[in-house]
């Protein structure tokens, strides 16, 4: 029972540390962490599908792209430069797109689900790439600066905006998305998706509506992906087809596995680690992708539960080594 307060403490410390970054570190670092917030939100959703429901999607970057393009359409084309409206539009677009695609994909599991999601991701990529007059093709669509919380922040240039107000906005968004997902995975729905992940046949005989629950998990994860994509789009100022490319989907899987999909906070740990690691490696060597690949291979072979799993196991071992002072 001492686990819950400890976890709460760690989370509070993590949030506090993140909140201090803009004041203590140069703007470069706050700016670097915006993609971390975007990926965290996306991966918290992605892991409902992967870790909790047992469905590994190789096309999830599609929803990040959808979020960014929704921002480009709402703020750029329609001229509604209000980030909250963009977030809402991104979420709605994700529901509209994920319902039919999810309906088709969740009929399959394992490699077939993976391949089908990959196929839809590639379809989305070629659509964005080829329909030049609609999407701008490979040059993408511009995403203009937007108001956040109704404020213009005229006095700030883009970097200052990102490293200041928008940083805190994203931190808040991530905490909110995390809290909401915490409720979801601890709900009756959250329990039943874990049951169907472990044994779909048995689950059906216990009245678990396997396909509908899988579909709902897929749609929720898509919404999280689109929110993450909108944050990413705000920072880059551009929605381009590479966001949807299957290698970007692989990037999402990489971060989740790195952090550990079997724990709630694993994906957040993975997103943070990869964001910082990639930045460091890129400044050291041009072969940074090679190093990342080697790290992923090592993680899968030696720590299949990822960095978060490693931390939990280590903490558990340390706790056990101490003479038991906890009263039963």
């Amino acid at each position, binding site marked *: 029972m001492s686990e819950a307060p400890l976890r709460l403490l760690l989370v509070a410390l993590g949030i506090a540390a993140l909140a201090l970054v803009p004041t203590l570190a140069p703007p470069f670092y706050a700016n670097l962490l915006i993609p971390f917030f975007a990926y965290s939100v996306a991966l918290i959703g992605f892991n409902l599908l992967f870790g909790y429901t047992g469905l590994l999607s190789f096309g999830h970057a599609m929803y990040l792209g959808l979020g960014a393009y929704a921002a480009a359409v709402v703020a750029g084309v329609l001229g509604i430069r209000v980030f909250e409206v963009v977030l809402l539009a991104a979420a709605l677009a994700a529901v509209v797109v994920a319902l039919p695609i999810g309906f088709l994909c969740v009929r399959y599991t394992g490699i077939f689900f993976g391949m089908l999601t990959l196929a839809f991701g590639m379809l989305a990529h070629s659509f964005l790439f080829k329909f030049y007059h609609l999407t701008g093709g490979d040059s993408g669509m511009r995403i203009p600066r937007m108001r956040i919380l109704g404020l213009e922040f005229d006095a700030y240039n883009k970097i200052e905006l990102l490293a200041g107000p928008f940083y805190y906005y994203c931190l808040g968004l991530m905490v909110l998305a995390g809290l*909401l997902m915490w*409720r*979801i995975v*601890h*709900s*009756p*729905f*959250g*329990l*039943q998706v*874990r*049951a169907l*992940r*472990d*044994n779909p*046949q*048995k*689950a*059906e*005989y*216990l*009245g*678990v*509506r*396997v396909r509908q*629950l899988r579909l*709902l998990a897929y749609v929720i994860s898509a919404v999280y992906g689109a929110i993450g994509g909108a944050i990413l789009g705000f920072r880059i100022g551009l929605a381009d087809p590479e966001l949807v490319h299957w290698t970007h989907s692989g990037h999402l899987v990489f971060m989740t596995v790195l952090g550990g999909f079997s724990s709630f906070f694993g994906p957040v740990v993975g997103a943070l680690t990869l964001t910082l690691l990639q930045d460091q490696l890129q400044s050291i060597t041009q072969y940074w992708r090679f190093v990342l690949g080697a790290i992923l291979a090592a993680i899968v072979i030696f720590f299949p539960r990822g960095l978060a799993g490693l931390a939990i196991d280590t903490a558990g071992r340390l706790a056990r080594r101490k003479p038991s002072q906890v009263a039963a």
Partner: protein
Amino acid sequence: MTPLLEAKGVSKFFGEFCALREVSVAVAANEFVSIVGPNGAGKTTLVNLLTGLLLPSSGQVFFKGQTISGVGPIALAKRGMARTFQLVQIFPQLTVAETIAAAVISEEGKQWRLLHALALDAAVTRRVEEVAAIFGLSDRLQHAARALSQGEKKLLDVASAFALRPEVILLDEPTSGVSTSEKHALMRTLVGAAKAAGVKSVILVEHDMDLVAAYSERIVALAEGKVLADLPPGPFFADPHIVATVVGKRSASHAQHQGS
């Protein structure tokens, strides 16, 4: 009296092969019926038809007066029939409490409550504790299912099915993989649980004739896809031809298994 569960003249073909031919079986409320027969007699096919998993090639299956041919497991659970499998079925990463709760959630229709805190749901918790108590799993509630002993896994498997509050439960060789000395204890637990949980009828598929004789009120023997006998235990075991067909072949094939 209309039977609770009834198969009327069902046949099942798999391609050219006829697994069941014109089989009629009825189970009344408050009845304990065993289905026996040598390997390949069609027991599994009959069970799959009775539980709506397979669509009969001809004939119909009725449950509470409504056809359930091919309705599938989810609808079946909703209508009040549960089944367990010969091979133990668990959710390895879930705890005992979570496994039972998964069924309770279905039964109470709470699966769409996305923001409902399950841990604070007193109704679900109470029901989980109730079911666990019936099966002697109360001190195992927080254990992972994969860490249980084989016998406990079996109990958990059946317990989760009971948590659905079924009217009929179909137990497919519930004592397979359990040592001979523990078989009777397990059966006593299961039958006691069925009574305690308000299950009306139990259908048992079993190879062990001792268990069949001890618990059945009626025995349906299948051989080569047909009903060989449908009798109470007394007359059933008094007929040497029936016993030879069901038991004889069974022990012969059993001996063969052990020899190989």
